[in-house]
């Protein structure tokens, strides 16, 4: 366990917790600026099993925020290229790769097999699908998103917290996305770090933050916003606490 000695030296992480982390399986949906770093942090932290899913190929314009990838990966599958790096980082971590989109056909099976799901997608449609499947399968998922100099994250735990549809009841047709507005490459690491910290807490059975984390790195504004469960939510409305 020498590899994790600086992690288990923390008051927050015992050697037993480290073993627990090693027994867990995390599904990472999307391997861009968020998912790429998320997968690296989790492999380095000693998560035993990671499942990566993304259909995109590495483009030159991605490299400013894909910290594990480089020019030799251009044109290659993001999921496969990331998996190759992760295997070099920690060969104790088992990596499964899915070169496809997360969708209604594969979603339920993938979520069912995971202990925790981490969002690294670039669109709300996929996130609403993750939300629906996670509530159905009773699997926690950590939402994360960023654009411009703004980032946000929320840890959704079925039966314990509101769900994405409680937070965003109507699906916006148009929101600013990175291609149009741009993204500062310092922002995804903050979101990803927050998501991974929450995910590790989930794996260890610790309480997670029940508020929306929202920040603007440029303006130095960091906020925690209270989100309430909607009793009439079409997705989690009839879920009750165990």
């Amino acid at each position: 366990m020498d590899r994790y000695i600086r992690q288990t030296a923390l008051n927050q992480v015992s050697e037993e917790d480290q073993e627990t982390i090693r027994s867990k399986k995390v599904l990472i949906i999307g391997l861009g600026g968020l998912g790429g770093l998320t997968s690296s942090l989790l492999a380095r932290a000693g998560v035993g099993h990671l499942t990566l899913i993304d259909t995109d190929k590495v483009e030159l314009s991605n490299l400013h925020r894909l910290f594990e990838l480089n020019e030799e990966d251009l044109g290659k599958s993001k999921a496969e290229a990331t998996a190759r790096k992760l295997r070099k980082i920690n060969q104790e971590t088992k990596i499964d790769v899915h070169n496809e989109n997360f969708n209604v056909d594969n979603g339920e099976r993938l979520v069912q097999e995971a202990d925790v799901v981490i969002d690294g997608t670039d669109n709300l449609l996929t996130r609403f699908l993750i939300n629906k499947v996670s509530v159905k399968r009773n699997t926690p998922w950590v939402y994360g998103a960023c654009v411009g100099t703004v980032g946000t994250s929320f840890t959704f735990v079925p039966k314990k917290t509101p769900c994405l549809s409680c937070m965003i009841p109507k699906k916006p047709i148009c929101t600013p996305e990175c291609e149009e507005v741009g993204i500062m490459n310092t922002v995804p690491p903050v979101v990803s770090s927050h998501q991974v910290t929450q995910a590790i807490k989930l794996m260890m059975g610790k309480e997670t933050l029940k508020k929306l984390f929202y920040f603007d790195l440029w303006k130095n504004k960091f906020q925690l916003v209270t989100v309430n469960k909607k009793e009439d939510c079409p997705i989690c409305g009839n879920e009750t606490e165990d």
Partner: protein
Amino acid sequence: MKIKIKLPEDEKEVETNASKVNDLLKELGINPVSHLAILNGELVTEDEELKEGDELDIKEVVSGG
């Protein structure tokens, strides 16, 4: 009544007759579907009632990654 409002690019106090969040957003030309409305620190839906002295923080729904 007076409402203190924080927009992504601006912070101001507005005088309004709008009784609900949705009406105020309409007055300001903001699409409620693509924004989060945070009233006095709590995320609310667009049909939430407004009262004198409220602080409304408007944020964009973030979807990139």
